[in-house]
């Protein structure tokens, strides 16, 4: 659907070159929701704008819908753009047009007849749940409503791809959830491929199938969201994941546990399918070891369960080592060291 091959984009003059995107290769597959996460300045916004050629690549190849887009003429480019909807962090609605007028705009560009246009606008208004706001101006809408109009406008011409530029970053958590739900609905009902950029891991976790992590213009990690979450490779990725689930014990607690010298701390990382079995209580009955659970989190990610526990193993050393052996067969075990 969208394929980047060794794409770079630099800005600026000879003396002052900004390498916004460096040698990026990635593929967004048809029907998936692909997320790009990075801190501001990582180049993700530029990367997104390369998809509809709002920015032209300095080098490399970009293929959208089986067409190499950087070679398109102005007219072909406009045609391509009508197949790619775009929504923005600051919504970018036309303040001089009503909600209806905003949604009708891309249809007018595409030369729809008045009757067909009217039908489509009403259909889109219904889809985003704003039938009663048709005659209102954007000024009078809330942030969430504005983004709904943005989505309706972007989808009016039934594009194949929707690109989202920090679409929820200006919204409060509740409204963010609303818009993310809507994006999932867009993906499911219209089978539209979505590429989104964000700096919030929460957004990735909530809606994306695959994710790319960007830093300094490069993609430093990429993969299924589930895999990236359970086995992050990069420090930046780990930081992003920590922002949605902080599974570290506080140093205060660690100190206290160390003083007590009762037992060893282990992190138990669940593999798929294990989360719903009573592992610990079974083992506890079998061996002379007590478990003190200090932290626990099991969450759902793309309908798969994953999570970890931090457990203090209290008992004779021989028994503890037997427990460890047994546990290692079914879960991943890592010793948590006191000194962090």
């Amino acid at each position, binding site marked *: 659907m969208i394929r980047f091959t060794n794409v770079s984009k630099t800005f600026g003059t000879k003396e002052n070159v900004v390498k916004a995107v460096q040698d990026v290769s990635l593929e967004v597959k048809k029907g998936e929701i692909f997320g790009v996460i990075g801190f501001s300045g990582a180049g993700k916004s530029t990367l997104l704008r390369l998809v*509809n050629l*709002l920015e032209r690549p300095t080098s490399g190849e970009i293929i959208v819908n089986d067409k190499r887009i950087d070679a398109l003429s*102005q007219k072909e*480019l*406009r*045609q*391509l*753009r*009508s197949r*790619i909807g*775009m929504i*923005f962090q*600051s919504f*970018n*609605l*036309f*303040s*001089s*047009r009503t909600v209806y007028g905003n949604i009708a*705009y*891309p249809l*007018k*560009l*595409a030369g729809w007849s008045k009757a067909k246009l009217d039908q489509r606008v009403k259909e889109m208004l219904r889809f985003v749940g704003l039938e009663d706001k048709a005659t209102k*101006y954007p*000024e009078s809408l809330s942030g969430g409503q504005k983004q709904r109009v943005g989505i309706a*406008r972007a989808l009016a*011409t039934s594009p194949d791809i929707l690109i989202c530029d920090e679409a929820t970053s200006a919204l409060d958590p509740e409204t963010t959830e609303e818009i993310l739900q809507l994006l999932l609905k867009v993906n499911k009902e219209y089978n539209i491929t979505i590429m989104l950029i964000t700096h919030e891991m929460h957004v990735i976790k909530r809606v994306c199938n695959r994710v790319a992590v960007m830093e300094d213009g490069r993609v430093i990690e990429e993969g299924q969201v589930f895999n990236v979450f359970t086995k992050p490779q990069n420090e930046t990725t780990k930081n992003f994941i920590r922002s949605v689930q902080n599974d570290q014990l506080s140093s205060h607690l660690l100190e206290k546990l160390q003083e007590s010298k009762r037992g060893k701390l282990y992190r138990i990382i669940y593999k798929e399918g294990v989360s719903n079995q009573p592992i610990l209580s079974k083992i506890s009955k079998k061996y002379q070891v007590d478990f003190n659970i200090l932290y626990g989190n099991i969450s759902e990610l793309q309908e798969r369960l994953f999570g970890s526990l931090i457990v203090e193993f209290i008992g004779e050393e021989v028994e503890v080592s037997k427990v460890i052996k047994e546990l290692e067969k079914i879960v991943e075990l890592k010793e948590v060291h006191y000194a962090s």
Partner: protein
Amino acid sequence: MQVDWATFWPRIIEATGETILMVILTLIFATILGLVIGLLLFVTRKGNILENRWIFYFLNLLINIIRPIPFIIFLVAISPFTRMIMGTTIGTAAAVLPMTIAAAFAVARIVENNLVSIDPGIIEAAQAMGASPLRIIFTVLIPEALGPLILGITFITVGLIDFSAMAGTVGGGGLGDLAMTYGYQRFDTSVMIVTVVILILLVQIAQFLGNMLSRFFLRR
């Protein structure tokens, strides 16, 4: 000296008509010309939809050359050009040409300033939807800036009433002419007062209409 008001009123009415005609004609031509120049100036700016450094610098320089010249001097300075185009430098029609040129550059600046204040994201959104530059100009730039644009043009209109009075002094006719010949040169204060009152009224009406129109387009 006593004014013969019975014969004088028709003169005042005639002069008011001339002033209004001058202002309206100038306003129409200057708005069209100024809109074109202002739009060109905006879209050829660095990073904009029709970026063109040479056109931008040329227009920018031209505006900066014409604008600082005091109108009364500009009026006299371009009189050979006026004669070439209009055939004469005297009369209401002849006054419209220099007024139009001077006002067009002021309008251009106002147009540009109002366009700059449009959120670039809105223009980007239109581009992302596949709108051509020309389409963006007519369906995004002008509608988005219309409210403040009308206020700006109202401001120019008030200035034009002032211009027209000056044009009057060099044979342009209208209220300025009347005030100068009867009021200033014949020391007739009452004529001066009448013309000034009419000018004030015209300004009030222009401002009122402008405010009303812009409010309609600002939709607040």
